């Protein structure tokens, strides 16, 4: 057991640290200070530029092979990078679905041509990706999905609908799961396609969330043509490919979420120091101290459990179902954090953007509301518990 960095890792850390210090936009850290940790549509353009800057500096795709636009480094460097991003409260990566899910899956399952075509443009943010999994009638029971892809000549024709599709209105590509063999067992007739969002017949309709923002969408497919060459991982093999994506997603979450939780926690502590309770700073209140300390502990525990997973990866093991535990834990911690932010504001928590009385311009109200999605997106907490129960603990299926 050893948490110390090697001299090479130390110099990498210093390189990241000084680059961030030099390049971090000043006004961004002011916005992050108050803990709003999910990018809102109004900052997409800014984030596109920021990711490009990170890419040009060589800080995107650290663990991806050099041949496909990455740096060919280990998860250790990735962890160091993420930690520095948290400490500097740097902006999040806009193309996160590409970096966290689509890219690793293409690198794992793609043809040489696909691997040369797609990953590099994900890193540079030239092409944004969204995820076409959920449908109006298929959420947690994803394998029941109904969107069809039928073979016509050398391409497939897609018809159907996806929903809760984050960032689809900005996306150039979609990871699409569609049914290619309706007669087969429900897990066996699904194929994973790389779908060009600019194809004729793709219709994106923004969906307003309870936050008031339209961060996600409905996506309709009306006879959309997809070339056969855009199948990833083989015909009718989409379930296995899609599940790999999800494992990478939860792994990426392990890194990314820990960073976001730390940034949000620092914002919360700052808020607590500025808030008053019974005429004194809220941080002097025994109950508030207990709650803050518990969040602090949970954030560090989360980091340690993540570091244990990284140790396994460094030894060459693949990300496994354990990643579900990390997702679950983050969700619970982050929602509790946002609740505490409301509690600290007391009656002021009722005031939102636009009021001169609103705390920190009303940003907490947004992040509080947004946090309700955490336990639904990327697999509900209930599904994560099924995965842990069945695939980690070996309990029988219901």
């Amino acid at each position: 057991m050893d948490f110390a960095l090697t001299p090479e890792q130390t110099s990498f850390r210093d390189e990241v640290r000084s680059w961030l210090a030099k390049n971090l936009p000043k006004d961004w850290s002011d916005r992050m200070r108050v803990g709003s940790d999910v990018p809102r549509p109004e900052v997409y353009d800014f984030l596109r530029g920021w990711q490009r800057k990170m890419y040009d500096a060589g800080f995107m795709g650290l663990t991806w092979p050099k041949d496909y636009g990455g740096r060919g480094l280990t998860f250790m460097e990735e962890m160091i990078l993420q930690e520095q991003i948290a400490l500097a409260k740097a902006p999040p990566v806009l193309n996160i679905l590409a970096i966290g899910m689509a890219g690793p899956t293409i690198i794992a399952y793609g043809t040489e041509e696909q691997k040369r075509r797609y990953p590099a443009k994900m890193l540079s943010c030239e092409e944004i990706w969204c995820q076409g999994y959920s449908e109006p009638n298929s959420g947690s029971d994803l394998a029941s999905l109904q969107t069809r892809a039928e073979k016509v000549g050398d391409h497939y024709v897609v018809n159907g609908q996806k929903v809760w599709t984050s960032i689809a209105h900005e996306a150039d590509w979609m990871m699409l799961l569609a049914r290619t063999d309706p007669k087969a067992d429900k897990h066996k007739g699904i194929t994973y396609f790389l779908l060009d969002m600019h194809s004729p017949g793709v219709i994106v309709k923004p969906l307003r969330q309870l936050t008031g923002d339209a961060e996600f969408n409905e996506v309709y497919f009306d006879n959309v043509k997809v070339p056969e060459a855009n199948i990833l991982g083989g015909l009718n093999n989409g379930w296995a490919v899609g599940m790999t994506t999800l494992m990478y997603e939860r792994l990426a979450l392990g890194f990314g979420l820990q960073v976001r939780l730390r940034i949000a926690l620092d914002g919360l502590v700052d808020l607590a120091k500025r808030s008053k309770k019974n005429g004194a700073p809220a941080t002097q209140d025994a109950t508030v101290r207990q709650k803050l300390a518990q969040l602090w502990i949970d954030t560090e525990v989360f980091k340690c459990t993540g570091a244990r997973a990284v140790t396994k990866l460094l030894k060459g093991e693949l990300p496994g179902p354990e990643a579900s535990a990390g997702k679950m834990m983050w969700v619970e911690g982050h929602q509790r954090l946002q609740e505490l932010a409301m509690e600290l504001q007391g009656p002021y928590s009722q005031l939102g953007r636009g009021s001169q009385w609103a705390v920190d311009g009303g940003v907490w109200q947004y992040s509080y509301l947004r946090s309700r999605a955490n336990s639904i997106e990327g697999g509900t907490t209930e599904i994560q518990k099924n995965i842990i129960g069945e695939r980690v603990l070996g309990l029988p299926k219901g």
Partner: protein
Amino acid sequence: MNFGFNEEQELLRSTARKFFDNECASEIVRKLMDGPEGMTPDLWKKIAEQGWTGLIFPDEHGGMGLGFVDLVVLMEEMGRAVVPGPFFSTVLLGGLAIREAGTDAQKKAWLPKISSGDARATLAWMEPSAELGARGITLQATAKGGGFTLNGTKLFVQDAHTADVIVVAARTGSGQSPQEGISLFLVPKGTPGMSVTLLPTMDQTRKLCEVGLKDVVLGAEALMGQAGSGWTPLARVIDRATVALCAEMCGGAQKVLEMTVEYAKIRQAFGRPIGSYQGVKHKAADMLVDVENSKSITYYAAWAMDEGVPEGPLAVSMAKAYVSDAYRRVAGAGIQLHGGIGFTWEHDLHLYFKRAKGSEFTFGDATWHRERVAQLVNL
């Protein structure tokens, strides 16, 4: 970075697992906990022969010279088997206090005997006030004729009734802060004026005593280190013992999880295994998260102790706060998911449930450690 155990540590784990499976199965635990000593001379000898009583003591004093990351492995296995007896008090309390605070002569006199299993030790620091901080130490040690006279009562002293020597924390003076003026003394068994009373405990595998000191006269050689500066080493001992306790708790929680999952796979209700119901499955998933997180933070704290990093005390308090809550939750859920059988004396779950509760309040509960975390991170 490497957040895993090496081959020797894995070997220690499998050796210890086999040892306690053979030598300290639950029927043995039950026999031991019924007796006043919680241990047989035979089992104690076997434990010592493994070298474990000397695991953390230096080679020169007959130990193995290993660290807390190594110790954590052994403690997890001991917690898994709910091993009763004076191992914890001898090694992690009395022995460690002598290692941290003793003079060369005191170390030479006691550590080889502790390492070989020929002597048992413990630490008496808490008092009826149940205060964990330095302020709680009020037992008076008055300087007299080159020696000291001790008067007062110590409580919650582990295994004092079987200890050959007790390290007693006393007040020899006062200063600007409660940390000043605390001294540690070595008080051998049978010292005139010292009385030891075994107390009935909820967790019968852990023996606690009251130690009364009435006009106990000690020579200068009983003083450990400098008079008045005992708090610093004492705090180091308590932090380290806390990490060892957390590891023991992790091992117990892991075992409860395993018992519960096995039961949920075979126990049928409404025609299918109860583990197939989400009401059971989801609770088991929560237990797994508690167990894995407990291990993560405990391993980190153990590493922090070995490396002596500045954030060591913070790591200890984060671990104890987390693990105290987690083990209690896991042990409670274990009983719940077993149903009626889990509430019987016959089933082993109560041994873990009681150990969880006792451990929760040993060296500070979650609330106490959360406040310490708040202070250490400058809230």
